[in-house]
């Protein structure tokens, strides 16, 4: 593992109790990143949605029904033990997807991807999308395409980049002004800025001054219950999707509701009650 004290680890925390499921994050993401349309968008399993909002229920009937909307961008996994071997990065045969040790961002190199789709099979979050069709936009809409993001060609995989171009622009600005680093507010993803409920908080998980760090309180030590899990949240209301697999995602979710936190992972009968109050090595302090 490359140890760089100055390395960023960009991540996100999404407050599921604030999310209304409005879909603004999805729309802003598609617009920002030049995500193309299909002629027929009714077949959802081949529609490209870098940010997808899932609808979850507690499974109870009226009047006890509860619903939660869960936005799901690429989880930017740092892999088992946080070594950068994300499920997708480690399997890509052509190094077309890579882990940025300086940012924690999982990149996708469209011009190198040859479309084998192994990364899609390896990702349990369905966060990766294949361009089954040539990219097309309604007439006139080409004029609205972002000049900072390259459109993708048919036959390659694409996914959320944490709006990496915004990071590049922020760095360029800082460099031009003779500054070393960038401010928290200078690099924010499109979905974060578009969320009307303020449910998405984005920033550097390594920087204690960033709000995302303060909410998540990531535990740098390996989880005593699972050596592959690192950066587990010390906040009892925060969880990650499929944390037990050791993917070590950088998308954290926040909810006051226990059933929502439980829905984030899979548990055997009776297991949840034993682990629900476990928050990394801090639980053993």
């Amino acid at each position, binding site marked *: 593992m490359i140890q760089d004290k100055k390395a960023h680890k960009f991540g996100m925390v999404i407050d599921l109790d604030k999310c209304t499921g409005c879909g603004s994050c999805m729309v802003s993401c598609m617009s920002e990143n030049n995500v193309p349309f299909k002629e027929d968008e009714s077949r959802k399993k*081949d529609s490209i949605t870098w940010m997808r909002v899932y609808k979850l229920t507690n499974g109870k009937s009226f009047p006890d029904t509860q619903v939660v909307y869960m936005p799901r961008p690429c989880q930017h996994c740092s892999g088992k033990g946080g070594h950068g071997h994300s499920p997708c990065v*480690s399997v890509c045969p052509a190094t077309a997807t890579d882990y940025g040790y300086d940012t924690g961002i999982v990149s996708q190199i469209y011009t190198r991807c040859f479309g084998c789709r192994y990364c899609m099979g390896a990702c349990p979050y369905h966060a990766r999308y294949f361009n089954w069709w040539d990219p097309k936009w309604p007439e006139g809409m080409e004029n609205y395409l972002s000049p900072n993001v390259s459109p993708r060609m048919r036959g390659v995989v694409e996914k959320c980049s944490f709006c990496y171009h915004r990071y590049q622009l922020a760095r360029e600005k800082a460099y031009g002004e003779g500054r070393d680093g960038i401010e928290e507010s200078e690099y924010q993803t499109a979905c974060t800025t578009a969320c009307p409920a303020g449910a998405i908080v984005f920033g550097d998980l390594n920087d204690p001054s960033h709000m995302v760090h303060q909410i998540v309180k990531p535990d740098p030590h390996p989880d005593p219950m699972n050596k592959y899990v690192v950066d587990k949240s010390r906040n009892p209301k925060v969880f990650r999707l*499929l944390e037990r697999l050791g993917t070590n995602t950088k998308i954290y979710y926040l909810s006051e509701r226990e059933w929502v936190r439980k829905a984030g*992972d899979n548990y055997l009968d009776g297991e949840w009650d034993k682990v629900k109050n476990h928050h990394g090595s801090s639980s053993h302090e």
Partner: protein
Amino acid sequence: MDSALIPEGADRCSFPKFAIGISIVGAVALWGVYAMFLCWFKGLNQTNMNDYYGFALWIWADLAVIAVGGGAFFTGLLKYIFKVDELKNIINFAVIIGFICYSSALLILAIDIGQPLRGWFIFWHANVHSMLTEVAFCLSCYFAVLTIEFIPNILENRQANKVPFFHHLAHNMHGVMAIFAATGAFLSFFHQGSLGGVAGVMYGRPFAVREGLLIWPWTFFLFTWSAAAFGPCFTLMVTKITEVITGKKLVKDNVVHLLAKISGWMITTYIIAKIIDTIYWAMVTAPSLGFKMSHFYTNNSFYGYWILVTEIVICGVLPGFLLLNKSTRENPTTRLIAIVLGVIGVCLNRWVMVLQIMAVPVMSFDTWALYIPSWQEVATTVLPVAYGIILIAITYRYLPVFPQERELNQPRVDQ
């Protein structure tokens, strides 16, 4: 019409009859070629694959043909390295079947990738951590080895063999074939294994993931083992089909019995390992990730426990037993049942390790995803079968594939 090309002393059907047969199968192949060009020019939207099913029918077909093509490397290993001399009577055919299987696998991969013109990136930008990179390198190299193994047989064609250079080349290549057989076995070990590793390393997919030895998950070893075990079954099955179609006995029983016996031992040892692997996965690996075994076999309309029982018991334990037992092995009917079940079993294993992996939901709020291939996928999957039939027909007609054919089919002299 083409009698000058037919091996000396061999009896073949008339050319018009042969041409009609080839034309019928050729029409099927053309259908596949049409679908292949549709996929190349219009893209993979011609398929029913989607973002849940990024790996689908083709990858199964790819893994299946490579598994059943394993008869080539394993028979070569036995013949040239372990000096099981009787197998010289079936090695040519095993190599031809292997050549067909591996060329088909490469063709399927060329159709399957979204950007076929960038296929070479897998070599140029190789990610050494990826099992698929290992597959690509070993597969390509092994196909080259198979081609080298096939060449002497081609040069033994009646007309080609009249050219002194070709005659000597074929003779000398036979002399050094042990080197290629050893190289082929080495390469096969790694590409068969890395195909298993493709699934086993997917730690985001609890249905696929396995612990293992160093960097290799157990599926790595199981895939190699199963290819060596069931590959000879496929060789025997295709030999039987060829015998039925040609109406001739082509390989002596003692050779068939020997290969069947070796296959029986391999299947039995493999299936014991597979059962241990399955139990460990179901009792330790999956539960450690929060999954009960029932999660993978219930709550959907297709994948039930039947597939596990069929793969392991009916198409694993049973053929192993039938081929180990002398009386059932030497009985043509039970032997045929065993080898057909074995071929189905290994294909089913590859199906499970590709399509069921994609189907199983992982996130607690996700649902099972089932998929039905489009006609273009079916046509391009049938294409290698048609191509295989045509190549076998041509090689059988014009090359001395079966050394025992003449002896076994002497004209009967009435007393």
